[in-house]
């Protein structure tokens, strides 16, 4: 029992980071119908930018963070303006591949700039940790949990009540209609990418803080796909819940199932679970069913 509690706590802590990164993917899908395979790379590059500003340029931490988010936002804007804008209405696979292409470019760029070493990430968070049920939870996890919860609430309200959020939803549903309603679809998309890029950066900073910084950090982009799909591609709450579920599931599978099946079952556990859920609920736990018309 004690072990189970520890397992769950461990799962939820890592799950909160998954949630945060998955939120970005959902956000983009919700407002533009694009499935972003470059999310992982945005996470990694965001982390590297902070590293560069703090360690290489030796700027104060708060200033660096502010600058990082600025640069990340700009990056998101550029991606939207120079690539995805041309792909409005393109097929799903084109969109997937174009974001993969962007991901390759970003990974390559980071590799060319920083090389493929491990870097020690600067201590941005106070070295504070809590003992919860026998697991030492460092402040980074608390921050990421907090961040994903706050963002969850903010985005939920944003989409439900704010004019901008409503426009985003309208634009994603029907771009032509949105134009008729006087919503600048372009501005909305641009904004989404800026926000997503910033969210990814936050995820990157947190993720790099709990391990070393490396170009391979972008792999997280793939890890969160089961999260996103599980929750439902267009559900913000789904991303958060999915993150916590997948985190816990991985932990449970790693501790209880892997010894019997052998190997690293943890990694596929989320995919197995995902397949089962999809066969029962083809649009994820909270996703909206697409209605087809003749």
């Amino acid at each position: 029992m004690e072990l189970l509690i520890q397992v769950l706590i461990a799962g939820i802590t890592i799950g909160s980071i998954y949630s945060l990164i998955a939120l970005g993917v959902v956000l983009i899908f919700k407002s533009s119908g694009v499935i972003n395979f470059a999310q992982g790379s945005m996470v990694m590059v965001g982390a590297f930018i902070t590293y560069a500003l703090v360690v290489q340029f030796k700027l104060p931490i708060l200033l660096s963070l502010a600058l990082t988010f600025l640069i990340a936002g700009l990056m998101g804007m550029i991606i939207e303006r120079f690539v995805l804008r041309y792909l409005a209405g393109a097929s799903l696979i084109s969109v997937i591949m174009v974001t993969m292409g962007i991901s390759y470019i970003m990974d390559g760029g980071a590799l060319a700039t920083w090389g493929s070493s491990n870097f020690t990430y600067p201590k941005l968070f106070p070295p504070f940790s809590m003992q919860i049920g026998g697991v030492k939870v460092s402040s980074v996890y608390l921050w990421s949990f907090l961040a994903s919860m706050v963002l969850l609430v903010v985005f939920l309200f944003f989409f439900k009540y704010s004019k901008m959020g409503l426009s985003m939803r309208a634009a994603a549903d029907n771009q032509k209609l949105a134009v008729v309603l006087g919503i600048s679809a372009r501005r909305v998309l641009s904004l989404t990418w800026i926000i997503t890029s910033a969210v990814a950066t936050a995820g990157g900073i947190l993720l790099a803080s709990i391990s070393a910084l490396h170009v391979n950090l972008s792999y997280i982009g793939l890890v969160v796909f089961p999260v996103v799909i599980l929750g439902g591609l267009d559900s913000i709450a789904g991303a958060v819940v999915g993150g916590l579920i997948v985190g816990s599931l991985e932990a449970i599978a790693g501790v209880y199932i892997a010894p019997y099946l052998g190997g690293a079952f943890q990694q596929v556990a989320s995919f197995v679970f995902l397949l089962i859920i999809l066969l029962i609920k083809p649009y994820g736990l909270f996703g909206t069913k697409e209605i087809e018309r003749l």
Partner: protein
Amino acid sequence: MGLSHRKGRPYFLLFLAVFILFPFSLFQYTKYILFLVNMTAIAVIGALGLNILTGYTGLISLGQAGFMGVGAYTVAILSTKVGLPMWINLPAAGIITTLVGIIVGTPSLRLKGFYLAMSTLAAEFLLEYVFKNWESMTQGVQGLFITPPQVFGVHINNDRVFYFLSVSLAVLAVIGTRNLFRTNVGRAFIAIRDRDIAAELIGINVFKYKLVSFAISSFYAGVAGGLWCYYMTIINPEAFQLSISIDYVAMIIVGGMGTLFGSVYGAIFVVLLPELIQRLMEVLQPVLHMEYTFAAFKQIVFGVIIVIFLVFEPKGLAEVLSRLGSRVSNRKRKEAVQNESLPGTGNSKI
């Protein structure tokens, strides 16, 4: 098999001559080029398979590498543990992979679009897990080694011998695909891609044909994987990871989705591009100094090319080349005496 029209025959013969004689040439690069051609031929088969599934039927698959892995493992297991000859193993690789493909395709009954793509991604990871952990069959992460069979006293994985095998199979695969899309099965695939509901309503059993598409696609992948295994003589779980799947998707995107020669161009392009970049970077090396920059540069160029194709040439190289080709042949036609009737509008699908 009817590859050449009357007009194309000299070219066809020239091609055949180059094809047969090249391996016996003695350039410094002959062997290396043979190696690249062999890798390309394998990629052509795999890309054709993926193109049938994704390009023609519209089902996105991120599991192509996993399927190829199944083919490669089938060959390895049959030849090491059972000791069967190649002419049984290669078809067997195709058939076993077909079965796996059908299983992986089953969720397409309920899943569409990206959700289906995710289930293929799940399959990719699951297959990798099975390769790693079904140790009695696959020997786990260590992988299996095979001793390639001999033809006239030469190992089949000798570049020159393998060249004839792989290129012939690739040509057969192209012809098979072309024929497939002349008949009802191929047309049904395209109908499903264009509008699955309408296809179902006019009497196409969409689910069945989706499975057929998965089956054919994975048959190709299995054969490609089997060939790969014979060539490399080793198969282990690291060989067919997700990045290979992505390479294959890139091939059909760059080459042209839903076009026959798109798979061929795409395979050539994706296999050779890194080589070209590598060579280019080696020339620039004295200026750049850092070796990893060419790996980085390769990645960047690869990404840029994918993006450029999707933004500016979403129909891929097949379209670009046919445009160039028609420009050239237009010019020629103007010069030529007009003793022929208008050119046929035959290959509209391509």
